[in-house]
């Protein structure tokens, strides 16, 4: 019986079995950002420990950074304090740091791949649950808490139990107007927000084979929203072509050797999985969330569910979600008016996402009462988009064009919903309060659907709008 990529990467990075039965796992690449790291550096200092391999950790700033202000000190004193903390920490420990002055700053899950730091066969950890994004390259990548950030800094290892492996195969082709975001929302809708607890998800099949790296990242990014801490796609020529020539990727002389190792790390054809799920690509429609977790999702032409459809605590969950969202059971989700449109976040802020959104926005006009903003995932994405003139398309259509950061995905910076505004968002979480207002209402969808909603002022089927 063959092995999965998970098996192989796990074995290659296993230091030992700990007395508690978990694995002491070596972390090949560690990424840190300003929000979940200061306490870890503090704990390290308190125990008198040094950073074991400073050249295996890379830092950037993304969560709290203002995207409409670039002069220091920042107006927001707490943001400024966080910046000073990370600057001091990287300075004292010798960790490479991509701040704005480097031109390589951005959301940690956007810049890792972009710089070629993220590679197949690695173990990757970051104090951020969307670290699963990096699995798009065939890495085993997962989020950790701050105490574990401390562990990685001190030992380059963590204590972790090996997950089981579920292969999710999506066959066939996606319809026009259906994107990677819709695929992962459909998967979460089907398996539930805790369906993946204890599992790594291996995404396979025609649909993933045909996807670009940007698209695979969108899918792997949201694995955690389905409860799976890890999600990956086996590395292939698409991944290798993406990596070639990137700053931290193997150089041309080494590339063939690296490619061989990467190819060997992919799951064997006869690998055994703990579970399998098959989905037909053709069955997936553009998806929109209607509730307060990403599993509360439906096709854009579906009707909002009713609590009467189910029993028990589940009924309460639906009622609770409908109360928060102020939506009517049985009504169509299409046509729901929006107040804000947000294109951005580590799920959908890469160049291809911005291109799709721009294609839909072009020639349209965001109504005056809708606030629409586009926040590129990194400085490099921003530069590339501007070279293609996407910023002009967005501005002409009435969108704000911002600097790179997490922005309204979690609203730690000044970009926040107000009161009970409804936001069409390309981000990954529709939790209560996630976008900065406790009463705020988030509808997750693909960037093209966000652009369509922005221009129409309401949830709209992008298939009807731009594709015809």
């Amino acid at each position, binding site marked *: 019986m063959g092995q999965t990529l998970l098996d192989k990467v796990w074995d290659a990075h296993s230091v030992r079995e700990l007395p508690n039965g978990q694995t002491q796992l070596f972390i090949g690449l560690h990424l840190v950002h300003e929000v979940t790291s200061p306490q870890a550096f503090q704990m390290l200092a308190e125990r008198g420990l040094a950073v074991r391999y400073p050249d295996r950790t890379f830092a950037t700033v993304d969560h709290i950074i203002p995207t409409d202000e670039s002069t220091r000190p920042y107006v927001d004193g707490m943001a400024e304090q966080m910046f000073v903390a990370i600057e001091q920490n990287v300075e004292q420990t010798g960790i490479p740091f991509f701040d704005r002055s480097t031109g390589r700053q951005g959301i940690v899950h956007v810049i890792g791949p972009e710089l070629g730091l993220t590679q197949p066969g690695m173990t990757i950890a970051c104090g951020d649950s969307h670290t699963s994004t990096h699995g798009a390259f065939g890495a085993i990548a997962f989020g950790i808490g701050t105490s574990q950030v401390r562990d990685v800094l001190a030992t380059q290892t963590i204590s972790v139990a090996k997950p089981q492996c579920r292969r999710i195969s999506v066959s066939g082709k996606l319809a026009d107007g259906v994107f990677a975001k819709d695929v992962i929302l459909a998967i979460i809708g089907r398996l539930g927000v805790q369906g993946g607890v204890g599992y790594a998800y291996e995404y396979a099949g025609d649909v993933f084979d045909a996807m670009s790296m940007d698209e695979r990242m969108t899918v792997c990014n949201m694995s955690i929203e389905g409860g799976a801490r890890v999600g990956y796609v086996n590395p292939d020529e698409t991944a290798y072509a993406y990596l070639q020539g990137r700053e931290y990727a193997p150089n041309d002389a080494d590339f063939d050797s690296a490619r061989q190792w990467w190819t060997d790390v992919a799951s064997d054809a006869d690998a055994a999985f703990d579970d399998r799920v098959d989905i037909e690509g053709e069955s997936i429609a553009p998806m929109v969330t209607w509730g307060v977790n990403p599993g509360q999702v439906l096709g854009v032409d579906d009707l909002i569910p009713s609590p009467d459809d189910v029993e028990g605590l589940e009924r309460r969950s639906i009622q609770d979600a409908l109360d928060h969202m102020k939506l009517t059971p049985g009504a169509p989700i299409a046509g729901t008016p929006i107040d804000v449109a947000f294109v951005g976040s580590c799920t959908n802020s890469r160049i291809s996402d911005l291109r799709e959104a721009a294609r839909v926005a072009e020639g349209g006009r965001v109504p005056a009462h809708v606030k629409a903003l586009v926040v590129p995932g990194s400085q490099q994405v921003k530069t590339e988009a501007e070279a293609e003139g996407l910023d002009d398309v967005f501005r002409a259509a009435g969108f704000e064009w911002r600097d790179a950061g997490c922005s309204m995905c979690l609203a730690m910076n000044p970009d926040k919903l107000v009161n009970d505004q409804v936001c069409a968002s390309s981000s990954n*979480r529709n939790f209560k309060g996630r976008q900065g207002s406790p009463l705020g209402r988030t509808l997750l969808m693909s960037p093209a659907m966000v652009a369509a909603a922005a221009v129409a002022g309401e949830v709209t089927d992008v298939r009807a709008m731009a594709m015809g």
Partner: protein
Amino acid sequence: MSDDGRITHVAGTGVPVRGNDIDTDRIIPARYLREITFETLGPHAFEDERRQLNGKHPFDDARFTGASVLVVNRNFGSGSSREHAPQALMRRGIKAIVGESFAEIFFGNCTTIGIPCLTLPATQIESLQSLIEEEPETALEIDVGSGTITAGQAAYQAELPASVREAFVSGEWDALSSLLESNDAISAVHDRLPYITGWPAR
């Protein structure tokens, strides 16, 4: 907790917080991630919900003041990996959590900071929550080693993965000390990874 870090028993009163899929954004809103220390988080646990419920949230209910066992439903702690969530609960006085199920990163974060998270079937959670609501002064006692939870006259048999139970009972729930022991083995793995030490010539 004993001086050597062993966590074998948790005793105290309980507080039920009902609902499935309570995510870490709800446990601690992102604006409190702006602090560079965990120390001040305690009073802000569930802040937005508490404000909306206007004093009716269990964390504001005087009957549950001083509770050390939190009793929750399904998939508690989903979403963000922020350790701020269990840190806020811990600094509020929570020493153990009993629920139908937990999100994985949250569960790991709790273990690392010394909060056992035990699971019970949905119906038993329901009964435990009701019991606490009806008689908030009921003394709860959790035997971490055996998973037995006694609540007044009632007893429940909860589950905890063997590795985690062992970690609490032996006092090694904070993994760092054991991780630090394998110095040479860490170097050996580091040195054999081609993406770190160099790709073999072809």
